[in-house]
């Protein structure tokens, strides 16, 4: 049983779990969107701040969780992302849906899944976290009841996630069968003693890779991404793109770095193929997209592929590069979806690139933010994206994985085209049929403020990354 003394270690998770229950009870008493939103914001903030009260060092909480620097870092990252998404959701939901309060229960619950996943040290806790995360997401994706596309994509996600989960579960069972352990350190011990991987273990690993690859939307498990991004409401898409993927990536790092599974040449080769395919296909398929959310979906596939390059370096440097890039990716994606939300109106979202035509002449500040975001995603210097990519590349070149490095450079070259296309459209002439369109739902406060903050972060990390890097360097070596 968890002793009470260990409870302070999982304070952020407890706060979010309690918040979900309190929000639910408050809805039972009286519906109030403003209160619910505010309360959710506060609990995300409290979760992020509570990390400060966790003592330094690495502690096991039963054998399911381990609270260390790495886990804390991702806890803060996810809590902050949740905070930003909650802020962005307020006006959006007000404009587009009548019953908004349950949205926040689901948001809190799926964040809870992500938060427990990043400190998971055991397959059982990982699987439970994954299910908490996914089950809430099914409902979140289909949350807008008036939107057929949303409901359709919710069902699609349900089916596909269920399939992937079943693979994952079967894979876990097979690994258990081979090693007799479900906790990561036990698996590591089992691996090192057996030497060569047996057939059962390989089959198990392949299934786990399918499950994880699906959640992270790596090629060839990526097909759901564009449909779900386009169908779900923009704040939820932002959540799927950041929190859901980031948490799984954090576990992937922990899983393979702490068990040494990547030392095996074959596993490494499989991941290399996946990474190369993700980078190339993600960027290539984005080239012809007119729908901005689909474009971002494909782009996120590419970005996860980039992350895999650092992951495959299997060094402390790779780990740091991946973490740094993930932060940059979070910031960029949140700001990108934030802009989409800002530009949406009561009737629908600003889905098409043409909706942004001439934005620079109407809302220069918003256009400047969006331009920076696109440039950062593309990796143009003086934005965070450039430095992130540079770190990935140095991590890759250091250990001489040239194939991956070259593919990264080539595919980010391809990527430039579609990012710049969006930028070019914003600077192009004015939109003719704008008279008929409704006013956008974005407000200066708090929406514009958050966007500005994210924008400044992108520039800040791009010019002076040391501030973030120092923190990352402290946490990165702990995991092994």
């Amino acid at each position, binding site marked *: 049983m968890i002793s009470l003394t260990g409870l302070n270690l999982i304070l952020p998770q407890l706060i979010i779990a309690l918040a979900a*229950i309190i929000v639910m*009870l408050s809805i*039972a008493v009286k519906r109030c969107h403003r209160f619910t939103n505010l309360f959710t914001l506060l609990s995300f903030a409290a979760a992020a701040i509570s990390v400060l009260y966790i003592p330094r060092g690495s502690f096991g909480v039963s054998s399911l969780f381990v609270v260390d620097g790495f886990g804390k870092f991702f806890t803060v990252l996810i809590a902050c992302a949740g905070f930003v998404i909650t802020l962005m959701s307020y006006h959006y939901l007000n404009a587009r849906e009548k019953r908004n309060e349950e949205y926040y229960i689901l948001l809190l619950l799926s964040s809870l899944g992500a938060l427990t996943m990043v400190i998971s040290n055991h397959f*059982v806790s990982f699987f439970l976290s994954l299910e908490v995360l996914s089950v809430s997401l099914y409902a979140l994706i289909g949350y807008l009841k008036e939107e057929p596309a949303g409901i359709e994509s919710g069902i699609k996600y349900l089916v596909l996630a269920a399939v992937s989960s079943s693979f994952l579960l079967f894979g876990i069972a097979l690994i258990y*069968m*081979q090693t*007799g352990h479900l906790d990561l350190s*036990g698996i590591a011990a089992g691996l090192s003693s057996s030497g060569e991987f047996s057939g*059962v273990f390989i089959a198990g690993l392949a299934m786990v890779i399918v499950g994880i690859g699906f959640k992270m939307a790596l090629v060839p498990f990526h097909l759901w991404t564009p449909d779900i991004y386009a169908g779900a409401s923009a704040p939820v898409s932002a959540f799927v793109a950041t929190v859901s993927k980031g948490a799984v990536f954090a576990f992937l790092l922990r899983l393979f770095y702490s068990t040494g599974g990547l030392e095996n040449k074959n596993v490494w080769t499989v991941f290399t193929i996946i990474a190369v395919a993700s980078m190339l296909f993600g960027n290539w398929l984005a080239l012809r997209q007119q729908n901005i959310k689909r474009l971002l979906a494909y782009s996120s596939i590419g970005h996860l592929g980039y992350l895999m390059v650092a992951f495959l370096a299997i060094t402390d440097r790779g780990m740091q590069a991946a973490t740094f890039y993930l932060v940059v990716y979070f910031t960029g994606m949140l700001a990108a979806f934030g802009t989409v939300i800002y530009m949406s109106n009561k009737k629908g979202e600003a889905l098409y690139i043409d909706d942004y035509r001439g934005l620079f002449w109407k809302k220069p500040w918003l256009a400047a933010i969006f331009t920076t975001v696109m440039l950062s995603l593309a990796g143009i210097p003086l934005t965070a994206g450039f430095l992130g990519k540079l770190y990935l590349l140095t991590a890759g070149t250091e250990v001489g994985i040239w194939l991956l490095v070259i593919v990264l450079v080539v595919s980010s070259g391809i990527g430039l085209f579609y990012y710049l296309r969006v930028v070019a459209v914003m600077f192009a002439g004015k939109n003719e049929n704008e008279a008929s369109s409704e006013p956008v739902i974005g407000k200066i406060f708090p929406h514009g403020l958050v966007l500005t903050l994210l924008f400044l972060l992108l520039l800040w990390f791009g010019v002076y990354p040391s501030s973030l890097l120092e923190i990352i360097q402290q946490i990165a070596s702990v995991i092994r």
Partner: protein
Amino acid sequence: MIYLLQEELSKKVMDVNDIASYLPIGIQIVCAAGLVAFLMLVTHLLGPKRKTADKLQSFTSGIESHGDARQPVAIKYFLVAILFVLFDVEVIFFYPYAVNFKGLGWSGFWAVLLFVGFFLCGFIYIIKKGALKWEE
């Protein structure tokens, strides 16, 4: 609850990968398949068979069917069904607790109480939102 899955059990499973350890499973599969085969065979052999021309003709009677057989069902059925499953599963968790009631002591009691408390919150929410009101 989860600690039931942990170390003590896993040690026992360590050495199960030789083929002999699958014997019980094999026996079970053979039994299961055998039972099905046996039952089918028995009914086939024992059942009375009378073949007449009338029996081979297709049988038609009653009112003509019209409309789609897959009628939309009120969402209420699903809600109740889902909620039933939810609370049903809750009971399943009580079983291992009941078995280990003594061994788990007070800490186990508090844990289960917390678990039930959370469920209670959900239940309050359901009642308040009127999910169980049949008329309306």
